[in-house]
């Protein structure tokens, strides 16, 4: 059996007295799109930040293996250089930095044009534009996805990649996620949109910091829809309690 690209065991993280992730276990296989579903506050984005190594996100227990390498002692850029990356739900804006520079970060010889075309943006119009407030939320989101495509990561964590994208463009986002997979990458796909979740190979539901269900995307979506709790109370999952 091939080594999973990501293997999380008993991951626990608390913010003050509140446990956000509670002995979480999850596996993402090579070239797998793995959707992560869960209500607001269930710990999805926290898990993303923790995997990427964002400041202040240090687990109190557990292990994370990335292609069999212990990820937790590594700094953020070291994790990225291994092939892990994160696309933020609300991407940052950079004054003065052009789209071309952003798409070729650390790889000045890389051609940014194909990635930009793949996200449906005209390179002639966008390459010299700056990543500042003049871009709409949807444009910024697409550029974020283009930067992930340019990077060709082994595992991309996409935190709600379709947020702020118009309905007609959702299929475009789906194509991009599939393109990442076709390029040999795996994707941990955090989403609230059923249409997007259903393109995954597998899906898991997160509730009160624990994976409470894993299966096919259809099963996971149905499970999520039929859950007993509307919102977790943080300490004990109402669904589990029910």
């Amino acid at each position: 059996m091939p080594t999973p690209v990501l293997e999380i065991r008993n991951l626990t993280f608390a913010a003050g007295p509140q446990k956000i992730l509670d002995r979480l276990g999850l596996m993402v296989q090579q070239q797998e799109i793995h959707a992560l579903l869960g209500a607001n506050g269930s710990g999805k984005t926290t898990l993303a930040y923790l995997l990427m190594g964002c400041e202040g996100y240090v687990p109190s227990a557990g292990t994370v293996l990335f292609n069999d390498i212990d990820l937790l002692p590594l700094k953020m850029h070291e994790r990225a250089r291994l092939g892990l990356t994160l696309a933020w739900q609300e991407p940052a804006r950079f004054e003065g930095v052009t789209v071309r520079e952003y798409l070729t970060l650390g790889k000045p010889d890389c051609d940014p044009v194909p990635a930009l075309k793949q996200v449906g943006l005209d390179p002639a119009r966008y390459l010299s534009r700056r990543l500042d407030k003049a871009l709409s939320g949807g444009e910024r989101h697409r550029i974020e996805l283009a930067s992930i495509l340019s990077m060709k990561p082994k595992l991309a964590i996409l935190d709600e990649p379709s947020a702020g994208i118009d309905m007609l463009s959702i299929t475009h986002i789906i194509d991009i996620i599939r393109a990442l997979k076709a390029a040999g990458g795996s994707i941990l796909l955090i989403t609230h949109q059923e249409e997007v979740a259903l393109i995954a190979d597998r899906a898991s539901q997160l509730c009160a910091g624990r994976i409470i269900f894993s299966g096919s995307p259809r099963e996971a979506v149905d499970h999520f829809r039929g859950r007993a709790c509307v919102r977790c109370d943080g300490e004990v999952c109402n669904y589990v309690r029910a």
Partner: protein
Amino acid sequence: MSELDELRRTLPMVGAEPSILDDTRIAHVVAHGHHILSHRTVPGLRVELEETPDAIIGKLIVEAGAQIAQPIHMCFGLAHPTGVQQIKIDVQILEGARAQVLSHCLFPFAQAAEHRMQATMEIGPGASLTYTEGHYHGPHGGMQVLPHATIKVGKGARYFSDFSLLSGSVGRLDIDYLVGVEEEGIAELSAKIFAHKTDRITLKEAVMLRGERSRSLIKTRVVLEGQAHADITGITEAYAKGARGHVDCMEIIQGRATASAIPIVRVFHPEAKVTHEAAIGSVDKKELETLMARGLSPEQAVEMIVSGILR
């Protein structure tokens, strides 16, 4: 090496080519201390210069309706570690004229030197002036620069200024600009400074929107490291119907640097509006982490963010 050659050689530090001084289509003034080393004019531009023991006194007039195609280069400086330079200049862009002035202030060896500029500028009705000022003060931090200017932007006129000091040390910098804008006039003031070690910056820019539908923007970007300190004051006052102003100040501090930003906005007409935003702090955490998530080290990420801000 002559003083002229020394200043020519330093021009690339502020992004200018030394060959501009040889081009007969381009007007220029080169002054070392209180001596005029070279000057050239072009049709539509009148330049009057006087050397005195205490200052260079100059008048630069762009005649009514004249469109000066190439930028006018004003190159001031000192090629010695010590010395004083005082410039008193009167710039007049007459009605309907258009000009771009590139002012290069070069003090490559300054250890205990001083540069004072007292400028008055008048941009006539419908005229336009773009004033770009690039400074290089060398590595020693021994420069004291005090540019003070009063600018009048006439009816329907445009004034764009861009001050930058991005290489080498700042030393002590004390900028004081006052801009008055008449009906439908536009004034945009931009300043970008990178300060290090014990550099000290005082930057005060004030715009008075006196005319109806006059508009202004004050945009300041300062990055400080070491023990540098900056006090930035952006003032906009609106006195007339439809006047619109905005003050935008961002200061990034690193190491033990300190900074203050004081936006002052005053409105004296119910149909005028002035807005402001000011931010002081370290490099934005989300920007930093986004770049690190693409594989840049923290140092590379900071460098990219800072160079973007100062661009």
